[in-house]
């Protein structure tokens, strides 16, 4: 549980930095306290350390001039013939982005929720709550000779649209 809270809190990168020895002393001690309570985090730190060691230990690859000249054309040839399968996309996929950046993930979820609410409300657009008697007069147009009054008598629950006709018309 503590591990997931750490992941959500964006501590994954701090653990990696801790494993690489890149954290300042003050942060180191706070991470150590967190590690004491989180066995999964400890394993993660250990895995980071091992990976880092493995990378440091791996020998450098040296190519002869001929090999270097043939390398790129061979890669292109294999790609053109579909012999090499992409093990992962060139760009990180959405899940990876959201997982590595929990705040971005939360912001996206919030934006999506807002969008859904907005779209839903826009479907119900013309409605707002009607007043106490359940009647709202949105607009009134009368003949140019006439006039109109909208009122509600005290003690009555009725709303009235009263049209005054011009007596000459």
């Amino acid at each position: 549980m503590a591990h997931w809270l750490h992941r959500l809190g964006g501590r994954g990168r701090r653990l990696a930095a801790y494993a690489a020895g890149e954290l300042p002393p003050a942060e180191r001690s706070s991470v150590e306290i967190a590690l004491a309570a989180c066995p999964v985090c400890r394993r993660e730190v250990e895995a980071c350390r091992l990976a880092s060691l493995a990378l440091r230990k791996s020998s450098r690859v040296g190519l002869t001039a001929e090999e270097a000249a043939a390398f790129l054309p061979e890669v292109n040839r294999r790609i053109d013939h579909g012999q090499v399968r992409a093990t992962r996309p060139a760009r990180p996929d959405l899940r990876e982005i959201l997982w590595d950046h929990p705040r971005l993930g939360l912001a996206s979820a919030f934006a999506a929720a807002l969008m859904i609410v907005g779209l839903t409300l826009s479907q119900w657009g013309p409605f707002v709550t009607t007043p106490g008697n359940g009647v709202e007069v949105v607009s009134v147009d009368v003949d140019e000779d006439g006039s109109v009054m909208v009122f509600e008598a005290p003690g009555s629950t009725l709303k009235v649209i009263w049209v005054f006709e011009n007596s000459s018309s």
Partner: protein
Amino acid sequence: MRSSRASFGQGLRWRFLLLGIFGVPLFLPGPGWGQAVSLQAQVIYAANQSGGVDSRLGNLAENLQKTFRYSMYQLLDAPKGSAALNQTWSVTLPDSRLLEITPTAIQEGQYNLTVHVHGSGGKSLVNTVVRLRRGSTVLVGGSSYQQGVLIIAISAN
């Protein structure tokens, strides 16, 4: 080349998925689509003359007496009908006048109605848009009739 194609394909899948999730509500029919509104118009003749209050007016009579100072209220007609969204329900009123009611938006319990009263000869007397809660009544009145006025009580269910 292949890896960028695969990545492009995956990106496209995500975009279609998001478009599906957020785009579908845009194409859904709005609330009230296909519903019909039950409408009732009570055509009342009000005047200061003998005759009292028509008992057929029921609860409306009390409210009319609180609202106006006429001594006589007579129910001339009480047509009922229904109209779907953006369909017009027409009622002939005394003296060749015409009442047209068009529901323009429907949500559970609330209706937007366009109410149009035409005088004789098709002259527009009043054109109004009202928002009614289910069971509420709005009065449209003032048009002269005989010795008094016509009052139209409109309600929707």
